[in-house]
């Protein structure tokens, strides 16, 4: 339906993120092996697979937290392989973490502010010699941060410490702060895990709104129903290799893949 139409639309467009032959071994274990898949712009790509399939490892490799043994990661033609994490972010790829990694002793507003562009305020030179410009930049950053907080419904909590938020709101905050960076590609590591009921139901429209704002999303999820409903494209990973990629309906209903996924 809508997902299939989107997939067909995307079939012709060039991928915004092209992963080719990515490989990484730990000792003798090949965590990621000849991993190849595309992430097309403006779509939601779901990365699924049984436990230990290497999904988070792929995220770590793309974002530079792990060094790949082989392969290539092209973001609009720019090679990301070998770049440190902060350089990957500068090129346009941001990520959330399974364990959130919020700055717990900082406020909600501060967490998001750190995503807003404040290069002058962060440069010691400018900080002391261009005080007026730094102040203007700070004002703009705060306005932007408030916009982002409104978008995620966290504006009322902006002065609370991140560690004092309820878990669902903490998850929202982890997405809010990367959204503030304006990076076009967002990697979401299990955005729905630990959520249930109302907060779980809100994940799908939220991620769709992100895409409506021009973002490209690659997400890891264990919840098969969620993936089927949310993704435009699904990539199935097993033992570090891509076994299949395509429309969610096809993949989530494939008996062979289901068997691998549930280990039955």
């Amino acid at each position, binding site marked *: 339906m809508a997902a299939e139409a989107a997939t067909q639309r995307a079939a012709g467009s060039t991928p915004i993120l092209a992963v080719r032959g990515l490989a990484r071994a730990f000792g003798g274990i090949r965590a990621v092996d000849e991993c190849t898949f595309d992430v097309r712009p403006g779509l939601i790509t779901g990365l699924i697979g049984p436990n230990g399939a290497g999904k988070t490892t792929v995220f770590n490799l793309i974002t530079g937290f792990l060094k790949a043994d082989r392969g290539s990661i092209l973001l609009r033609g720019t090679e990301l392989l070998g770049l440190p994490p902060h350089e990957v972010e500068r090129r346009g790829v*941001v990520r959330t973490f399974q364990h959130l990694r919020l700055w717990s002793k*900082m406020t909600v507003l501060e967490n998001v502010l750190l995503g807003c562009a404040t290069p002058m305020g962060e440069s010691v030179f400018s900080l002391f010699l261009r005080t007026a410009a730094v102040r203007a930049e700070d004002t703009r950053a705060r306005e932007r941060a408030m916009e982002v907080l409104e978008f995620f419904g966290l504006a009322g909590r902006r002065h609370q410490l991140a560690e004092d938020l309820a878990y669902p709101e903490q998850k929202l905050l982890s997405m809010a702060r990367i959204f503030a960076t304006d990076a076009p590609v967002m990697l979401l590591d299990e955005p729905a895990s630990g959520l249930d009921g109302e907060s779980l139901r809100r994940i799908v429209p939220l991620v769709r709104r992100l895409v409506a704002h021009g973002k490209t999303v690659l997400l890891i999820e264990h919840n098969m129903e969620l993936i089927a409903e949310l993704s435009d494209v699904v990539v199935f990973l097993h033992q570090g290799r891509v076994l299949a990629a395509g429309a969610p309906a096809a993949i989530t209903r494939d008996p062979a893949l289901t068997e691998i996924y549930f280990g039955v």
Partner: protein
Amino acid sequence: MTAYLAHYLVMVGIYAILAVSLNLLIGYSGIFSLAHAAIYGIGAYASALAALKLGLGFWGGLVVAAGVGAFASALVAIPSLRVAGDYYVVASFGLQVVVLAVFMNWTDLTNGHAGLPGIPRPNVFGWVIDEPFEYVILSVAFAALTYAVCWRLTNSAFGRVLQAIRDDEIAAQAMGKNVMQVKIVVACISSALGAMAGSLYAHYITYINPSSFALHESIFIASLVILGGSERLAGPIVGAFVLLAIPEALKFLAIPDTVAAPLRQVIYGALLVAFMLLRPEGLLGRARAQVRDGR
């Protein structure tokens, strides 16, 4: 009496500069350095030599001191910070020991154990600072300047980045912050300020020798930060006021000199242990459960 009080205040000012600048590392960046006395000494020697051998004035001496101090710090920070944070402690320990060896053994330059006498009093825009009270003004002025610089640094986007790095470095990297670069910059600023304190000291006492800048001095400066409270910018200043009063208090007890010096250290050591057991956040810190490890 007044000269006595003036001396106390001058030293409080100098140690305030040392402690506040060290707190940039310890409290705000989560980097524990044992080399601050070495930096202090580098500033003192650089400024003294600039005055004695190059005839540079007060401001020239300050600039030289800050420059050499920052350079020495960067030299150690760049390799050590690349590895786990724990290595920096050992590296700073090593820097401290090596710098002291240079002070003691490069006799052509530093005169070794004998030290450098006859350092001129500062000449600030034609005003020669000779009276103890005048030096109090100079010392307090520079302490205020240091505080202002550190305040600006920590209450800004840069300060936010520092706090984020301290809270969760990995998340900071993922959000585009160049953590290594930030840490090196902070180390250099901290050292430039600490070296400046050395310059002030050299021109105040007019005689310096290596024994003032050894490891126990590094530990003392760290105590000022820890006992005063590393969470607040003013914590180290309170630490300076309190800890520098202790030797003065001891003098009232008529203890023989040979025992007074080690006894002072025993008290500092005991205070450190006691505070860690009973009030690790220091005098000015907010009491809270220290649950997380991994730093």
